């Protein structure tokens, strides 16, 4: 399957993606622009909804172009965004020249899109772009400046409460075009200091706290409310979601100007994909974005070719899910047919028709496999999109932190299920941010240690079987395991007497609680929120591994399944009940003699070619009756990433295609069970959650 996918990728797939997204944005802009012009001709006010939508379109286009590295388009979009921002904030008047300028830009964008892939033509377009940019600049600067903070929707009482320094910071942040927003938060009076400092720390990760003010208005009993004036490069929606703020507690006072250092192409992309989510928080000052749905066939009267250049169709991922489900059902039906074929062939009376049937079944089987991989293929996206985001974040952090860091990316064309890629972004960013922020030493320190003054972060993605491994390696200080251990003891996560292997100690960085402590960041440089990273990856059926060499660096590898859809499973039987184990996690199966099982500290072990393999009895794990002691057990060696374990089962029952389905009902998720599947008969079979079983293996340290 993997080879097939490779073959399908054309070199300009990336360009095509860009073109198709950009075309959608331009379509929307043409309509809104026509709308705007109608208003202007009628002498009416500019509809703020339309202006906002246009502004966002330009913003999205800028982000998109930045993401795909089309600088001329990004530059122009930036200027258009500028002037729209002025329009939106009332600094620029809605006039014919303004509308004409935007219109001209949209046309220029369209013609630039046609030139993509043609470097010469793109280079030649630099001149008209430059001219247009100058004219836009001139139009934008024409009107007079408004009063200093007049545009801020901030209560005068709060504004007056600012100190001179805070005012200066506010002015400075506005000048830099950062987003300014106000976050309201309630705290228990008894513990408000702690709560406030936690919130402040969290905000500092995304921006600057300009001022903390007691908030006007009544707070609930025994609570105190603060308003935090915050400046950030991130859009309000991102801040709200990063800080998990309750709805309505964040108010955007001033949207950042596009001039802010690469404001938010990441979020711009998110906006393009999920408009309702991205605009959620901004509702305070703008509309909701039902507009996407309203684009009926209103023709904006654009003179250039209306034929789309790209032949890409964008599809709702849920439609693909449905398709996937249907294919899954078909695969299961095929299993049932296979059984019938077997029965027909086994009976002498029907053996002839049975063998004909078998041929038909085989042909069906082949086609079904093709269908299956074709549907899977549709869901696959290259990691390059995620990598682009990472490199932007690194660029920004690099300048913010004043560290010299070289980012190396390998394997951007590795493909993963779209849904997994979406979920991967946050954990990956987190790891990279940690590496940059804490692991890589400042220049002087590196020089003193005799290291290359420039730090290095190397991200590599590659396929390994049915998994994709993404490894983030830095050449920073490495994890100080002794400090880590001391910290874990201080927090009561391990007892002073506990014997931990090097690996178990290192795994402590995933312990919840270690995460929020700043000590780790100072001493070992690692561990901030790593428990969250692990939780997210486990939810995707993946695992995280850490390797470190003190003073030399750390490598964090994430191993993820390529897809969440149809998988091959090994069926095992324990106490006459069948269970399915995803085959991608199965390394091998062995038939052993009970006497081969050894014990160490009460844990069962198997000598597997010289390596100690920890064993678990599935029957005992699930409180099922144990098999008779003289029956020879089977060992299923399972593993993801670096961890391995052997599951003892009574019997193996072959391999099957399975679609993991969620279990519906009132019982909360059962640990160790990923879902259930059907195998052609009516009885569902439970699917084991291998990553949870492996995680439990490390966690459950019996004390003798």
């Amino acid at each position, binding site marked *: 399957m993997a080879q097939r996918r490779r073959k399908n990728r054309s070199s300009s797939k990336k360009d095509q993606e860009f073109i198709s997204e950009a075309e959608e944005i331009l379509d929307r802009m043409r309509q809104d622009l026509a709308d705007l012009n109608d208003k202007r001709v009628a002498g009416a006010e500019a509809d703020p909804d339309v202006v906002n939508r246009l502004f966002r379109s330009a913003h999205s286009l800028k982000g998109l172009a930045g993401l795909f590295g089309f600088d001329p388009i990004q530059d122009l979009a930036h200027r258009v965004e500028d002037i729209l921002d002025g329009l939106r904030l009332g600094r620029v008047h809605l006039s014919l020249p303004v509308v004409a300028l935007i219109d001209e830009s949209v046309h220029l964008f369209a013609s630039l899109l046609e030139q993509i892939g043609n470097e010469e033509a793109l280079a030649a377009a630099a001149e008209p772009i430059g001219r247009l940019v100058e004219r836009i600049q001139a139009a934008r600067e024409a009107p007079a400046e408004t009063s200093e903070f007049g545009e801020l929707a901030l209560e005068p009482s709060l504004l007056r409460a600012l100190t001179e320094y805070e005012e200066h910071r506010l002015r400075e942040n506005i000048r830099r075009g950062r987003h300014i927003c106000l976050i309201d938060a309630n705290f228990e009076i008894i513990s408000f200091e702690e709560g406030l400092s936690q919130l402040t720390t969290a905000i500092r990760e995304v921006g600057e706290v300009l001022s903390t003010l007691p908030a006007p208005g009544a707070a609930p009993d025994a609570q105190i409310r603060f308003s935090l004036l915050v400046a950030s490069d991130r859009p309000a929606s991102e801040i709200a979601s990063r800080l998990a703020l309750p709805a309505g507690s964040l108010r955007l006072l001033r949207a950042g100007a596009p001039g802010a250092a690469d404001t938010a192409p990441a979020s711009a992309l998110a906006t393009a994909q999920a408009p309702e989510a991205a605009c959620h928080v901004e509702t305070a000052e703008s509309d909701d974005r039902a507009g996407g749905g309203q684009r009926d066939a209103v023709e904006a009267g654009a003179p250039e070719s209306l034929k789309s250049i790209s032949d890409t169709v964008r599809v709702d991922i849920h439609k693909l899910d449905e398709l996937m489900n249907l294919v899954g059902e078909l695969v299961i039906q095929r299993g049932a047919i296979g059984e019938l074929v077997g029965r027909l062939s086994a009976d002498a009376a029907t053996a002839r028709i049975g063998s004909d049937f078998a041929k038909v079944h085989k042909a069906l089987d082949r086609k079904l496999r093709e269908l299956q991989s074709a549907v899977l293929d549709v869901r696959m996206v290259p990691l390059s999109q995620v990598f682009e985001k990472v490199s932007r974040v690194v660029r920004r952090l690099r300048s913010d932190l004043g560290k010299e860091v070289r980012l190396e990316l390998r394997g951007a064309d590795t493909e993963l299920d779209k849904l997994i890629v979406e979920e991967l972004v946050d954990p990956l960013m987190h790891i990279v941010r940690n590496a940059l922020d804490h692991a890589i030493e400042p220049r002087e320190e590196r020089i003193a240690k005799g290291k290359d003054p420039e730090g290095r972060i190397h991200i590599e993605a590659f396929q390994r079987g049915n998994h994709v491994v993404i490894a983030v390696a830095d050449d920073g200080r490495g994890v100080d395991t002794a400090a880590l251990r001391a910290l874990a003891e201080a927090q009561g996560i391990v007892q002073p007497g506990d014997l931990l292997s090097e690996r178990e100690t290192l795994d402590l960085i995933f312990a919840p609680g270690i995460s929020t402590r700043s000590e780790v960041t100072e001493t070992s440089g690692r561990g901030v929120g790593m428990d969250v990273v692990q939780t997210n990856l486990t939810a995707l059926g993946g695992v995280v591994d850490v390797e470190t060499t003190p003073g030399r660096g750390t490598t964090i590898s994430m191993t993820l399944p390529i897809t969440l859809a149809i998988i091959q499973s090994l069926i095992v039987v324990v106490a006459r009940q069948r269970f399915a184990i995803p085959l991608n996690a199965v390394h091998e199966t062995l038939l052993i003699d009970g006497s081969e099982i050894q014990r160490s500290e009460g844990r069962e072990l198997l000598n597997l070619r010289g390596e100690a393999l920890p064993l678990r009895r599935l029957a005992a*794990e699930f*409180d099922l009756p144990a098999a008779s002691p003289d029956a020879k057990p089977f060992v299923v060696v399972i593993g993801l990433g670096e961890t391995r374990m052997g599951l003892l089962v009574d019997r193996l029952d072959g391999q099957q295609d399975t679609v993991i389905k969620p279990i519906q009902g009132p019982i909360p998720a059962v640990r160790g069970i990923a879902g259930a599947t*059907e195998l052609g008969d009516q009885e569902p079979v439970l699917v084991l959650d291998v990553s949870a079983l492996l995680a439990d293996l490390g966690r459950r340290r019996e004390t003798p």
Partner: protein
Amino acid sequence: MSAGSDAAGSPSPRWQDLARRAAERRNAEVESVAVRQLLTFVLDASPYAVPVARVREIVRVRPITPVPRVPNDVCGVISLRGEILEVIDLRLRLRLRAAQGGRASRIIVVHSADGSVAGLLVDGVSEVLNVSEDALRPPTAAEAGNIETLCVQGDRFISVIDLDRVLGFDAQR
């Protein structure tokens, strides 16, 4: 109509119709609910009921796969047209005597509060009753919280199950 005759597989249109109308009525006139529709069934020879509006379908008992690490009143999961549903043994859930299922046993598929569905294993399904509000009595102290109300029918009481309680596993653990 005898709901028990409804075979496994897709619910008859009549059923969905009934359920939908009941739901509509319930939503339409909150104050003047004169009539409630109840699906009655048997557990340990006594009559019980659930609101029709919460019932999605009734299916014959099919192979149930036990699930480890769950309370023992959860029988396991069944597969129903591609969905995997948990089935609760209502006898055990209501602390009645355990019993082998008979030919009349059915699984009543109900909507739980969070919008998902779950199956309730019962000894047999009886009928759909239209009852007026004045036939409803508060449960006695002896009914241990799983009964929402008692419905007088002639000289007998039918216990109406409090579905949210019966399906509320996390709240109790």
